[in-house]
């Protein structure tokens, strides 16, 4: 009996915090999303139904956010995983300076994304004083002058994806280098003695052996990219709708708070739609990985 009590006492803080800040909100968000015409001030609603969902799905801002999010996901996840794989392979093949490179590559992980985002903005932005370093570089090679921050959509999307990749790279490189290091070197020796070409060693031995980690990165990469938000704020400011660069998560927050805020019902509906998308994509990912990934 006394033992039971100690255990529950130990768990008490966690249970309280999780109950108040996770379990209750989870139920609550569902309720919110079905309450029509909820008024934040009086905390009353007209009734229940699926109007909130239909409103969100017909909101052009949400459609834009959905589109932006999907573009970010589709571009950054494969690209960042691929580049990270290449860099990790190179890293595991060198001895000199390896520690140096690894340290440098990890730096973005420990920096404040909003702070460094500001630096990216400066590098890409066109101002009255300067066209921005990147634009000047493009002009130097004979290209047109582009404002990546307030300019055309594709230019903004380019910076967005570039910055996102820059931010997620350290984690992926780190995970992949340690995955590569865990492959027993004797397999490489065996392959070497058998005159296996380098590309074949990679596709037939290395890749299958680290495939669980690659898929882990793809899955977490998808989830992370679908939740993109603060990187966007860092580059384009808090009014993402005006910049046309909003994301689903940004839409949720905008509905909740700020100038356009005060609609927790719409925010909840949008959050649940996001959750449904992420859940579906993750399930598909897992099904694909079962078929293709080799697990020991």
């Amino acid at each position, binding site marked *: 009996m006394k033992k039971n009590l100690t255990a529950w006492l130990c768990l008490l803080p966690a249970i309280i915090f999780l109950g108040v800040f996770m379990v209750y909100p989870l139920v609550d968000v569902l309720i919110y999303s079905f309450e029509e015409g909820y008024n934040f001030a009086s905390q009353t609603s007209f009734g229940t139904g699926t109007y909130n969902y239909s409103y969100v799905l017909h909101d052009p801002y949400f459609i834009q956010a959905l589109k932006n999010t999907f573009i970010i996901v589709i571009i950054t996840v494969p690209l960042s995983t691929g580049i990270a794989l290449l860099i990790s392979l190179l890293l595991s093949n060198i001895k000199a300076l390896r520690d140096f490179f690894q340290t440098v590559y990890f730096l973005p992980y420990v920096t404040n994304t909003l702070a460094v985002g500001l630096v990216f903005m400066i590098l890409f932005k066109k101002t009255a004083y300067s066209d921005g370093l990147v634009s000047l570089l493009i002009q130097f090679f004979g290209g047109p002058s582009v404002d990546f921050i307030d300019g055309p959509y594709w230019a903004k999307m380019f910076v967005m994806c570039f910055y996102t990749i820059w931010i997620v790279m350290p984690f992926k490189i780190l995970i992949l280098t340690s995955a590569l290091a865990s492959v027993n070197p004797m397999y490489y020796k*065996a392959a*070497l*003695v058998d005159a*296996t*070409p380098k590309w074949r060693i990679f596709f037939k031995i290395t890749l299958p052996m680290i495939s669980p980690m690659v898929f882990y990165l793809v899955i977490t990469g998808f989830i992370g990219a679908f939740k993109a938000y603060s990187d966007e704020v860092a580059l384009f400011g808090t009014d993402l709708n005006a910049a046309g660069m909003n994301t689903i998560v940004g839409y949720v927050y905008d509905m909740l708070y700020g100038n356009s805020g005060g609609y927790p019902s719409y925010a909840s509906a949008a959050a649940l739609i996001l959750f449904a998308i992420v859940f579906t994509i993750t399930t598909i990912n897992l099904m694909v990985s079962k078929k293709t990934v080799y697990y020991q």
Partner: protein
Amino acid sequence: MKIVLEHLTKKFPGISKKDKSEVIAVNDFNFEIPDGKLIGLLGPSGCGKSTALNLICGLEKPTNGRIIFGDLDVTGLPPENRGVGLVFQNYALYPHLTVYDNIKFPLENLRGKDKLTKEQMDAKIQEVAKLVQIENLLERRPSEMSGGQQQRVAIARALVKRPQVLLLDEPLSNLDARLRLQTREELKRIQQETGITTVFVTHDQEEAMSISDTIVVMKDGVLQQMGEPQSIYDEPINLFVASFLGTPQINVFDGYIKDGGVYIGEAKVLDAKGQPDGDVSVAIRPEGFVLDSNGPLECEFVTREVMGRDTSFVAKHDKFRGEKLRAIIPSEEIYDGKDGKVRFSLKPSKVHIFDGKTDERIKL
């Protein structure tokens, strides 16, 4: 194909931070492996035998010296151009591939005029699978097989591209005792059927003795002795080789030579006509003892272990190097053990005398 090693030396830079001095893993190796023979590289762990193997297959580049396959100098050649097959201690089977695909792997690497069709590959795989008797396992994954089966697959994979030289690194050390006996006979059979020059590395002297045509004994990177198993056992060149070969271990006593006789303590055990006086080690094989109530060597009797055909006598002697000595005596010999003493005379062919300072053998 015969293999010649000339002044082969491999030095590694020191790893420890304090001591940067080089480690010499292989020190000035010179020997010739005749075509079609099975050679055992034998030595305690850390003696450089695996390095020697890696040098032969090209995974390591020698610091000095040359490696010659047939008439060709292959010293600087990368492993893939040497035509060697290598079997690893842990087999190194690709865990995500079936046995069939594992064996096929080296064949698929062949390019240009050596490129094989699917049918040719299949024929080769079936042939080698039959040789090592794994025809019915081809669809399995390595994790679904026993250690012995994995070992066979590893050998099949090494053999399938018909290497000129087959190298095996501690091939049996991961198997249990029974499988080890079985597999080592298999190895011998496969080697004889294919006639491929084979080098294998082991720390197990019994294993080396039982299947090698020739044994190379190593210690601290230095070649100690090379020869047929029996001749090394009978004529060890130094104390290390004598102690390393044979189970139970050879019994070593502190002794000395005086006036043309070999003495252990007060007892004169052998004649040593014409030998200068001095301290020596007297090493007696367990089977070199003969129960003899008038024998010169008197020991304190400890116990007797009956092993069926033979009896093992455990005894003490204050000149013995170590705790207890062990003598193997045919079981029919009678011992009463009344006074707690046991007396032996010695078979001269089973006793080796080594110089007290250099540990080199003194031939009587």
